[in-house]
């Protein structure tokens, strides 16, 4: 379930549509402070089903919608799409035969949410289950946020067992 492409529009500082095409191997994301690099990581977490605004540095989920800049007005919707390659023919029967699976999440400023799998509306649960079933879901050790690497060592012993549990 490799990532083939990420499309972001209206999400945090990505008010204009941005597409990242991922190929094999190592990708490095670079740029000055505050330009949007960690926002890309947030977009990936969000489209995978992150439900806690605090895990995205926000106070409410509405904070992920582009709130405007000095030159640009706020917008009314955030949308992120993750296109995954499905060579392993994984996932539920409805998606198993597709070589690509597109996961889309949208949030409107009035609070309405929309979720899609290959452009077909679905529930958030379908998205989170897809990621769990295809082995992508264990994010605890596959997404390390900025400044968080030290938490493993400073955590209490009881708070570290989830790392083993997620890999088990």
């Amino acid at each position, binding site marked *: 379930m490799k990532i083939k492409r990420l499309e972001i529009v209206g999400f945090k500082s990505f008010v204009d549509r*941005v597409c990242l095409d*991922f190929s094999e191997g190592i990708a490095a*994301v670079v740029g000055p402070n505050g330009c949007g*690099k960690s926002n890309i990581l947030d977009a990936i977490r969000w489209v995978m089903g992150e439900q806690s605004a605090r895990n995205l540095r926000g106070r409410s989920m509405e904070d992920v919608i582009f709130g405007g800049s000095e030159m640009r007005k706020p917008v009314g919707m955030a949308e992120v799409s993750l296109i995954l390659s499905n060579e392993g023919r994984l996932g539920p029967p409805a998606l198993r035969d597709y070589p690509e699976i597109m996961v889309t999440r949208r949030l409107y400023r009035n609070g309405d949410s929309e979720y899609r799998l290959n452009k077909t509306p679905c529930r958030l649960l379908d998205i989170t289950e897809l990621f769990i079933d295809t082995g992508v879901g264990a994010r605890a050790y*596959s997404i390390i946020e900025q400044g*968080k690497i030290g938490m493993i060592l*400073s955590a209490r012993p009881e708070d570290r*067992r989830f790392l083993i549990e997620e890999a088990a």
Partner: protein
Amino acid sequence: TRKRFSETFRQVNDRFQEVFPRLFLGGKAELRLTDEQDLLETGIDIAVQPPGKKLQNVNLLSGGEKALTAVALIFAIFLIKPSPFCILDEVDAPLDDANIERFNELVREMSDKSQFILITHNKRTMNVADTLYGVTMESPGVSKLVSVRINDF
């Protein structure tokens, strides 16, 4: 699940004991269960001995040593049960040049099984990448992608 936890713990611990000396150019580290009798509740301690140093309270380690130890553990888990992709946001920030080299070398090796996305300010890390994504804000507050030359940094 008790059996599964214990088996996974053993595998991750073995890997951790291999990965740590690779990143530290020596030394040893291991995971220890705080309560071997209670696998459902036990915590996990980390015992660390950087090369040439003595086993000490893990809190006395330096900022870079702590980060590198955490990376060793994360990578050990990753090697036991790879995720299709791994995203690391500025984990190289506290590391000196020599440690960044070893870190990048290990990421290089693991990248044929999994996709790695490294967010970084470090030139050496940029150099190990196959693809480089430059993010800028030409219009303030608005992110866009640009193509990057390594010598821009």
